């Protein structure tokens, strides 16, 4: 294990935590020029930093503005590292469709969930904000997605989550797709009531749960 690599990974993570986007880009470039593996840079550098930022958020040290700046730094680092990824070396990727339900344009939670999903090994298609229920179904069908992630920050739009679940049933797709719901007003009991598969109060836990649920479903299918 090279000390140089460990140092760069640590610096990469720290630059994300410290919201220093320019530093993140510079360190990511150093990392690639030194010949290290981009995937490791993402998972043990950038994502580790984002994980740390998430912990600081849970500890009420960081808040949404700080998290957004961290995620900007992380995305800037991703832009440097992504082109160097060797896909055959990564594990099999499951496809996921995420979006903010119709009637809501707040996408902070959805963006964090998306980042966390990507770092746990999902290939994520982002439908964006204010997404009509039918679009989740169409895109999941088109991609053969194993996961649909629905987000909202507003109590007024929660009902649209149930509509997506019901549409999946009508299309006969419900057993093939894991449905995760999240966002400020969402709770475990709401998830249970509308028949969603999973909920977690914060993005990194939600992403880990998503992976477990999809793996569980795949194993049952086999």
């Amino acid at each position, binding site marked *: 294990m090279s000390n140089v690599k460990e140092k760069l990974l640590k610096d990469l993570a720290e630059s994300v935590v410290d*919201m220093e986007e320019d530093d993140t880009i510079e360190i990511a470039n150093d990392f690639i020029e030194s010949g290290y593996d981009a995937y490791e840079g993402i998972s043990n550098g950038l994502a580790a930093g984002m994980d740390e930022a998430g912990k600081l958020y849970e500890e*009420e040290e*960081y*808040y*949404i*503005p*700080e998290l*957004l*700046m961290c995620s*900007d730094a992380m995305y800037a680092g991703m832009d440097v590292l992504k082109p160097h990824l060797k896909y055959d070396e990564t594990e099999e990727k499951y496809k996921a469709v995420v979006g903010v339900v*119709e*009637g*809501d*344009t*707040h996408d*902070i939670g959805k963006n964090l969930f998306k980042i966390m999903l990507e770092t746990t090994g999902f290939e994520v298609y982002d439908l964006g904000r*204010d997404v009509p229920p039918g679009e989740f179904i169409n895109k999941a069908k088109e991609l053969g997605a194993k996961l649909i992630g629905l987000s909202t920050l*507003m*109590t*007024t*739009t*929660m*009902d649209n989550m149930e509509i997506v679940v019901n549409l999946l049933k009508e299309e006969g797709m419900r057993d093939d797709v894991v449905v995760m719901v999240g966002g*400020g*007003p*969402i*709770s*475990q*009991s*709401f998830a249970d*009531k509308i028949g969603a598969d999973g909920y977690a109060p914060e993005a990194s836990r939600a992403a880990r749960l998503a992976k477990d649920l999809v793996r569980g479903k795949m194993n049952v299918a086999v």
Partner: protein
Amino acid sequence: MSLFKDEMTPMERAVAFSKGEDVDRIQCNPNLSNGIARVLGCKISEFNHSARTLADAVIATHRRFGGDGAKVFTDLFIIAEAMGAKMKYPEDETVDLLEPAIKDISEISKLEPIDPYKDARLPIHIEAMKYVQDEIGEEVPCTALVVGPFTSAFFLIGVETMTKMMIKDPESVHRLCEISLENCIRFADATIKQGIGISIAEPMSSCTVVSPKHFREFSKPYLKRFVDFIKSKGSGTSIHICGKTDGIWEDVVDISVGALSIDNIASLKNCTETVGDRIKIMGNVDPSSIMYAGTKEDVRKATLQCVKDGYKSPKGYGIMSGCGLPVETPIENIDAMLDTAREIGWPITDEKLEELMSFNRYE
């Protein structure tokens, strides 16, 4: 339908409370949002152009539930819209922000002062307030919900842009909040002229969104000036802040607003113990898992628990949901909340609450 009957009107109750006299029951405000359209039986989009329909929905909601406040409110964006933000108007869902008024702080000079009697949907709201105050103002305290200066500023430039500006360009956040405050005051002034009170909503001030440090720097000074203006007009006001708020309760007390309504995420017990000696507290039945998704008995038990946690608060306590109710919240759950307040009656004691907790009324 209601199981119990009130003996006082909400106005009689409010007056008696303020004098420290006996009342028939504790105050209870279920806090409907656009669910008022379901009570009246109209489409939510009718509120976009008919003051009469909006007023009728507010009045029908008052008559249906007998809650301790009648509130003219449709969505968080009416001020931002009047300043140039673009909206999405679904036929039967809540209006939402489509595009902020400006995309970049360099365009700040494009933001023009509002005319509450002319711009966008503001005149509809003002007219609805007049109908509501004229027709039920003697029976129930009526308010308009006005979004505070900090939160409105987010909708002027966009939530993400404003959020990052707090770290990258704090000076511009202040410039934007100053403009936002001026327009909140213009709208509040017109509102007070209709004879009704003001409920402030400041969702973005939540500790779930920004740190107490950022709240103190960017929101509190403008909120204080907003509240000072409202009080200078002889009007009372309350504030609702969503999400976590424990880090800023003392600050809300500093602002000297009449009442604080807290989210179900915050601890009611903790809140009444910390600042209840200086401010009236309202809250905080879970609008999602209890009011929307729960049974009538769930509502009853959660309401009893809130009363247990709150009723001894020295400056007063009122039952409320922790945030605006989802549109499709079952009507019978809202009845159950009010009926629980009636069932408890007056005076309230620990023994009475224990007794009521020990059995189910609905199932």
